[in-house]
């Protein structure tokens, strides 16, 4: 029973991530991190404050 509950929670988290990604892709113009999601996204700035 516990295993099923954990799997269900994981499922909802994944669903939430997908919905968020699709929303940003279609409706929001600003860049999000890892925009292209590919292995080799050169277009992320590492924002560091020294």
């Amino acid at each position: 029973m516990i295993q099923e509950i954990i799997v269900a929670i994981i499922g909802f988290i994944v669903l939430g991530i997908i919905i968020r990604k699709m929303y940003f892709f279609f409706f929001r113009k600003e860049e999000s991190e890892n925009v292209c999601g590919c292995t080799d996204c050169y277009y992320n700035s590492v924002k560091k404050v020294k």
Partner: protein
Amino acid sequence: MNLSDLKTGEIGIITKVNGSGAFRKRILEMGFIKGKAVKVILNAPLKDPIKYKIMDYEVSLRRSESQLIEVTYPDYNKKNTPLAEAYDFDNIDDSDNQDLEKTVKDGKTITVALVGNPNAGKTTLFNLASGGHERVGNYGGVTVDSKEGKLKHAGYKFNIIDLPGTYSISAYTPEELYVRKYLIEDKPDIVINVVAASNLERNLYLTTELIDLGVPVVIALNMYDELVSSGSEFDHDKLAKLIGIPIIPTVGRSGKGLPELFDTIIRIYENKEPYVKKIKIYYGNAMENAISKLNILIEKNRTGETDYPPRYLSIKLLEKDKVITEYIKQNFSNPNEILALCTKEIKILEASLQEDTESAVTNARYGFITGALKETYKEKQHESDSTRIIDAIVTNKYLGFPLFFLFMWIMFECTFRLGQYPMDWIETGVGALSDFIRNSMPEGMLKDLLVDGIIGGVGGVIVFLPNIVILYAFISFMEDSGYMARAAFIMDKVMHRMGLHGKSFIPLVMGFGCNVPAIMSTRTIESRNNRMITMLITPFMSCSARLPVYLLFTAIFFKEHAGLVLFGLYVTGIVLAVISARLLKRFFFSRDDTPFVMELPPYRMPTAKSVGVHMWDKSRQYLRKMGGVILIASIIIWFLGYFPNDRKFDDKIEEQISLIEKKFDNKEITKEEKEAQITNLERQRNLEHAENSYIGQIGKFIEPAVKPLGFDWKIGVSLASGMAAKEVVVSTLGVLYTGQQDQDEESDSLRDRLANATNPDGSPTFTPLVVISLLLFVLIYFPCIAVIAAIKGESGSWKWGLFTIVYTTSLAWILSFLVYQIGSLFI
């Protein structure tokens, strides 16, 4: 005579530059002005393009373009002074010069923008200052977008913006306009003009434009170590006083000079920097007269604050800058009056100067630079250096192409052979983790998710990390050393025959790493048609994300010739790209010849640190993807494959298994018969479960489309899942091909499971012919959604993104179909 008439080793003095439009403007800005000496260094293997040396740097031009430049032989009896009039700093009238406005600055945040020629070292400085890991390479056109980083220094916070490299900020290329727009609209507090010390004359041209623009500037005199080691002498302090801009020597690779640079920026910001003064570049009496008249009219007609200083607007109007002309039309009360005066003044100037106003302005700027350097710079002539020697070999007309293909073959062979060992170690580790969880966790859904979903999916892809890193090490080495620019040089004629531009070669080679930055780097190609074609054929450059799929199957079925098969796949992609380029040129994009003007930087030995940093960056990005897209996709695929979980069929199978066990206990059947019958029932259960799951239903729906290619529904679903990222094809196979046969230590790897996979009728799912058909399909169909989004972003329209999906997928289907069907007749 023309520049193209000069033989190798000969020097000519430029007398006139013909041609028009973007090419002429670019060639003037790069220093091809009247009076400059040009030396022919060598011809490319196909006698085109030609490498020249001018102003201490090397540039390549096509033969047809060099025919537009008229030259004479130098007269060695005359003193070697340029024909262009050098600006006389001794006689300037200081009364026009002003201090910068003293405005009270609040706040402790300073925004600085990095501006400079391509390959001057802006991004290297940016990475060092901000701790960023933006991509650098030893060729122009690496940075095509602005990046932001942050730094804290001496109580101030700095926002550092890295802009694309430009030779000037005129209005011809997207990145020039981008930089100018950024400087005007975003108004950074200070501009860091990164000037390559190895190439002062050409680099300072952009500085003169910044002086005209009136923005606060500090010069980072980068690669200063190369200047010092060359033996040349340069009094940068004196130059700083002459031009009113502080100059700080820096060495990008080591970070030397950075603290002093930022200290200077703070002093400028606080109005405490003694070198800063506003000066005017003098364009000659006639031009200054015209500028004054335009200034008066601009001041009279302006409706409010303008973004540009009036003098800058006047100069740009006389240069016939189209963007500024539009700006005048939109922001002034009586633009027609201003434009009419401009036209009149241009006519007068061109009649009196006997040359067009664009050239006159460019000549005046270079005159200013020449005058400044005459007072401050003593160049030491050096003999042939290592760059020349290496170029004599790699761009040799007989050796150039074979060497290039040899380097490519070595790259792929090493990727496979060297990567095999760490790959095996990672695979063993993944297998051990899987066994540990299988043996220690109680049966249940979470255990199935972990073992079959996450470890099956992610584990199947993570093993290829060493191969990806090795591939990138080679690509980085080629970029950082300067060989990439040479490759573009020797390939220009070939690209030209494809209907493309030599500059297209670099994005295409970058596509072997990832198609997304390759598509974005097409911004450096001036011609829109060439840019579009390059973008649309980039997906045929087999990216590193496809490598796991290739390696997986070549390791099973073509182990002895894996390197050759890999090479063959990449060559096939290139051939398809060539054919597609021709077709696109013929049917969609009319012939549009753009000049090939490309700087050839000197060779630089990449440091072990820079190669190491690149390899670490790639590893980090790959691992990040494992924890991101691949993990999510594996979980989704598992969910779709696990549900609906119909227990009725399972219960029926369990009953039959119990029956068989009873028969064995009663000695009605032997042990072997029992095991065979149970195995058969297990197989039926797995098959039933797989086909009735959601993913099975999706797979069955698309199976008719992929069956003619020799694929079953699992392969079809795997290919469809590859839309998110190509590695997901492997992780999906890893999730779907589980539990089909007894799991033991020897058959635990995905390779073994695929090698032993069978169809319902017992025949092997993967035969060499099916694998070739599959590899071709993966090579050709569109890489991923990110690529489609990049094409849409760069082309400005979803139309081209959709075109790419339809074109590549259709082509993949047709070729795989032909290979499989024709191959089936013989095998």
